[in-house]
């Protein structure tokens, strides 16, 4: 197989080794708490990366990605319960529906840019939550849906989660380093100038939102299987949408791997803060967010690069 020239062997190897280590870890050391935490981290990584394709690469910050996460989750759950669809196929189906739903609202709203788009996504997220809460046939209303539980399912899902996170990581890399990624950055910089040099901004933005939404939906399906009970208030919650924004900002918005790092920090920190300071934890996130935006707009990635004196990653991509 011919390897595209934009794939760096070191990056591919790093991802491979990390995945292999994580895949073997539970076999060597069985710990239910760590097992659960890691699975949730995988989910966070995949979702944060998918959010970043739109929010970081294209600069279209969405506060409504829970709409796709929730829809994908409920479609997958409904397919499993009512049609007996196998789990993974149900996730993919949920993902496809969520991606198409993203296109439905994204095609008109992606013409807006910056804060205007963000405001629209808040509306989309809330409207979707309300409508789906009333759609008993899909979501079971506010009492939600329970999925069939099989023994060892939760244990096995660890590896599914790892696979989803790894695929999202590979996709982030491919999206960014291929020529498509270059066009996305051009659109982010100046959408009209990009159109003037032949970039089909509408089509590319739609494509990215579809991919992002479909991945979100897949994550929602995974979440449904993992917890075997879902309800609309949680799945479509605004705080869920915010959590992906936070992961992106903490890790480094628009960078390839930053949001994955942000997801790790976010999930672990939340676990610790909720246990230790349940009243304070949202406030502490707020402070963290302010500090990041004030001092290091590229988040932890920016900090790391500064420490290692590397060029800024939202710049330099191609070497001639």
């Amino acid at each position, binding site marked *: 197989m011919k390897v595209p020239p934009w794939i760096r062997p070191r990056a591919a190897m790093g991802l491979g080794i990390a995945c292999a280590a994580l895949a073997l870890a539970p076999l060597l050391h069985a710990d239910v708490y760590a097992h659960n935490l890691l699975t949730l981290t995988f989910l966070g990584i995949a979702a944060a990366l998918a959010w970043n394709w739109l929010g970081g690469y294209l600069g279209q910050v969405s506060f409504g990605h829970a709409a796709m996460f929730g829809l994908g989750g409920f479609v997958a759950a409904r397919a499993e319960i009512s049609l007996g669809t196998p789990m993974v196929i149900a996730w993919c189906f949920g993902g496809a529906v969520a991606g198409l739903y993203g296109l439905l609202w994204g095609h008109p709203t992606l013409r807006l840019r910056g804060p205007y788009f963000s405001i629209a996504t808040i509306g989309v997220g809330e409207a979707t939550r309300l409508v789906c809460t009333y759609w008993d046939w899909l979501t079971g209303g506010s009492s939600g849906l329970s999925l069939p539980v099989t023994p060892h399912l939760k244990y096995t899902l660890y590896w599914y989660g790892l696979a989803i996170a790894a695929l999202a990581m590979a996709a982030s890399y491919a999206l960014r380093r291929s020529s498509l990624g*270059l*066009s996305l*950055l051009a659109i982010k910089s100046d959408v*009209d*100038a990009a159109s*003037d*040099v*032949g970039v*089909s901004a509408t089509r590319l933005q739609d494509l990215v939102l579809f991919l992002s939404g479909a991945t979100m939906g897949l994550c929602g399906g995974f979440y449904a299987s993992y917890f075997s009970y879902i309800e609309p208030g949680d799945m479509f919650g605004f705080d869920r949408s915010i959590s992906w924004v936070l992961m992106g900002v903490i890790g480094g918005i628009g960078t390839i791997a930053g949001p994955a790092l942000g997801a790790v920090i976010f999930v672990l920190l939340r676990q610790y803060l909720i246990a230790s300071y349940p009243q304070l934890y949202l406030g502490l996130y707020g402070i963290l967010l302010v500090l990041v935006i004030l001092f290091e707009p590229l988040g932890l990635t920016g900090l790391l690069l500064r420490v290692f004196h590397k060029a800024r990653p939202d710049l330099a*991509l191609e070497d001639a």
Partner: protein
Amino acid sequence: MTEVLRAEGLSKRFGGLKAVDEVTLSLEEGSILGLIGPNGAGKSTCFSMLAGSTKPTAGRVFLGDREITGLPAFRAARAGVVRTHQIVRPFANLSIFENTLVAAVQCARRDRAGARGLAREVLEFTGLDKRRHEYPAGLTLAGRKRLEMARALACCPRVLLLDEVIAGVNPVEAQEMVGLIRRIRDQRQVSIIMTEHVMAAVMRLCERVVVLDAGRLIASGEPKEIVQNQEVIAAYLGKKHA
């Protein structure tokens, strides 16, 4: 000589204001046409309509035999009509090389290797190749105007619309820019329409000039005739001096 671009009765209204009013113009293959007029005459709006970034209220645009009226900007660019911007708009987050590479990939539709070759070649042509790893923020205004042209050339245009690429740069750079525009026409077989306030450059470069005033085409002809034209002088300086 064959005609490469033709606009017929091109008009644009913004509410009650006629920014461009029934302008008809034609560009010969391999020539440079000057589009001049006082500020607010509708030159940039004309460019926007030719390049597809603004939809005309009325009128038609043809590239060769093909009608391109109302095509979205990216399609007009791929068809071969590419514009530069009066106020330069580089992609600040991309290196100079990547700025041209985007155009070579998306507009000229080259594969990766072909696009890289084209981008390098265009940067060499415009004299930016040595600085290709830098970012547009490091360039002078003249440099950014060159980049604007390099990016447009990476689209492999048939017709290049240059919106005031000389105005605002120092006299030495202006000389170089005149040379560059001439080389684009001679060596790359690109036909050019340029708007410009620097009349010396227009006189030296353009075979023909059309004059806009208040959205209407008031004169067209060779540069020598145009500067004698009473109506043109009145448009620029007022009736008293005509």
